[in-house]
């Protein structure tokens, strides 16, 4: 579309799932390296800062309507800027909740969530649907817990002082709260906790087809389920923290553009033009918003996604937005793989000893991976 309009050729290279870093490492070595690439979190910012142009004062920065999704490196250089953002929490099917004799509006904190969830699970056979969808621990699903749900612990651990860089260690102060919600999800779902390690259940399909009323998911699910569950809403991670009636959704992004600092000035300008076009052109931004959710730019198209509207509504009602502290996870693939291993053992046998191991992987594992990355 851009090439047709402006005559400037655009070449896109796509990495297969989970291999973005490998692909980028290989592409950067070539004679014609990519001019536009993704730096999604501070870890990547550290690795790729040398290759990223400082975006401060550029035309694309001028188009932003918030600086909440900018990523800076240690020296304060603006290495990448968000081109869309998303939110996650617990997706609810209000029709099913009402069928079970409850109201979504009544869910205001962990206690009320627990009451509804446990009631539905207990009467699952009679109702014909369960509370939570399957909480698989295979690689296609485990990130919903090790990446997303874990965010509640990190978020509260910040104690209001938002991290600007990865802390060297965690205290694990809110591990009990993570356990609250995690236990609730795995023990009140369609699939028994002992059968989660293998994976193979399609949680999204379970939610779409009305087999379960709750799913731990994000705003990107909206496109897939708006036909079957048009009235689906998203509620925050209620986990038993003081004052959580005022909690909002988890908002953030890992989709941030960076411009190759080692490219020629001409190529950088062409890249800049392309970025500005993406966020200002009505047709282009419409397309991007429809596939990405919402874009933090002044002239970009409006979002049609209910979950993102929920996120906005919570914020408008004065609830606190839970930032994606999870993006600071050091050496993220290793950290999460370790957590999955510990959670597998815990799911198989929910003993205190096994939960201690989960805690170790969660808290001490953070420090270990922090050291691995930062030497």
């Amino acid at each position, binding site marked *: 579309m851009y090439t047709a309009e402006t005559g400037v050729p655009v070449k896109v290279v796509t990495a297969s799932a989970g291999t973005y*870093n*490998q692909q980028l*490492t290989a592409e*950067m*070595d070539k004679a014609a390296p990519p001019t536009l690439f993704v730096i999604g979190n501070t870890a990547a910012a550290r*690795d790729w800062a040398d290759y990223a142009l400082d975006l401060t004062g550029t035309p694309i920065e001028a188009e932003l309507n918030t600086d909440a999704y900018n990523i800076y490196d240690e020296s304060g250089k603006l290495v990448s800027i968000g081109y869309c953002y998303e939110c996650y929490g617990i997706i609810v099917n209000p029709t099913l909740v009402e069928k079970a004799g409850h109201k979504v509006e009544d869910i205001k904190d962990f206690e009320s969530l627990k009451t509804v969830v446990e009631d539905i699970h207990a009467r699952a056979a009679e109702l014909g649907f369960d509370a939570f969808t399957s909480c698989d*621990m295979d690689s296609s699903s485990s990130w919903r817990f090790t990446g997303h749900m874990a965010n509640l612990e990190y978020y509260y651990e910040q104690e209001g002082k938002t991290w600007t860089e990865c802390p060297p260690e965690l205290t694990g102060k809110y591990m009990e709260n993570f356990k609250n919600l995690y236990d609730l999800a795995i023990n009140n779902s369609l699939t*028994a906790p*002992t*059968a989660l*390690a*293998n*994976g*193979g259940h399609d949680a999204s399909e379970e939610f779409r087809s009305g087999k379960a009323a709750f799913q731990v998911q994000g705003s990107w699910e909206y496109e897939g389920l708006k036909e079957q569950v048009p009235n689906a809403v998203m509620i925050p991670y209620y986990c038993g923290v003081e004052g959580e009636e005022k909690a909002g959704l988890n908002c953030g992004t890992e989709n941030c553009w960076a411009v190759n600092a080692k490219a020629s000035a001409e190529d950088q300008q062409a890249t800049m033009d392309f970025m500005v076009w993406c966020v200002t052109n009505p047709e282009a931004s419409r397309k991007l918003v429809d596939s990405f959710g919402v874009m933090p730019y002044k002239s970009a198209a409006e979002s049609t996604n209910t979950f993102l509207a929920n996120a906005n509504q919570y914020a408008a009602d004065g609830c606190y937005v839970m930032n994606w502290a999870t993006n600071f996870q050091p*050496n993220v*693939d*290793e950290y999460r*793989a*370790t957590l*999955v*291993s*510990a959670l*597998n*053992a815990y799911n*198989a046998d929910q003993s205190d000893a096994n939960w201690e*191991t989960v805690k*170790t*992987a969660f*808290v*001490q*594992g*953070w*420090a*270990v991976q922090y050291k*691995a*990355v*930062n*030497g």
Partner: protein
Amino acid sequence: MKKNKQIGGSTIHVATRRWWPLFLGPVVAAFIIGFVWPFFQGIYLSFCSFKTVSNATFVGLQNYIKAFSDVSFRHAFWYTALFAVTSLVIINIAAFAVAYALTKGIRGSNLFRTVFFMPNLIGGIVLGYIWSMIFDGILSRFNTSIMVNAKFGFWGLIILVAWQQIGYMMIIYIAGLQAVPGDILEAADIDGATGWQTLFRVIIPNVMPSITICMFLSLTNGFKLFDQNLALTAGQPFMIQPDGTTVKQTEMLALNIYNTFYTSSVASQGTAQAKAVIFFILVAGLSLLQLSFTRKKEVQQ
């Protein structure tokens, strides 16, 4: 006529003598670009700290010190050694047994040979995923998974490579068994040797070259195993130490190197490179040792 032919013949001969580099060139060039050059660059990089290979700084032996002091690397080494030896024994015994049975003139032995050889045609990653589904299907009935128990991971991988490689080794053994001279067997028969005596005193010494090749192949295959390891367990389950460090219980050497390179920091890419060089020396050394050891036992006809 005769004269012409001679002239033509010697012209071709002279031309071949003069132009041979032209014909050898493409292969040599491909070999240098695809193998020799990366190999030496790899060795050089093991002494460097780097993010992209075109931008490396020399750091001396630091990478090697880090590699040897890495607990997970040492664990992966012993795990791989155990795996290689176990798979070597199982694969070779089974392959020899199958080959022996299929050279006894069983009906449809050609069909059996084809069937046994088939798994070898499927790629490692695909096999890994297929078998993980099979194992998961079985283990989920017992409410467990290959991802939660390291023993399942080990034997699962053994079953997988056995299934994959027995057919291949079998073909080599069949060729070896068919080459055993009939008169020797006949002589053994006339001398009154029992079946077992014929097998151990006559047949096995005569197929020693095949045994050498098969053991060599299965030992190096065991050490170099990567795809199947990645697809089946990817190192799960991890042993999580109280200080938060982990040892991946089913991670083999090649996967350990890969993980060191891709999932850790910039500083560890050189370490991964050093591990790869150590790995090469190890596999090459072991194979040469094994080769010279079995060569001594071969019988010259």
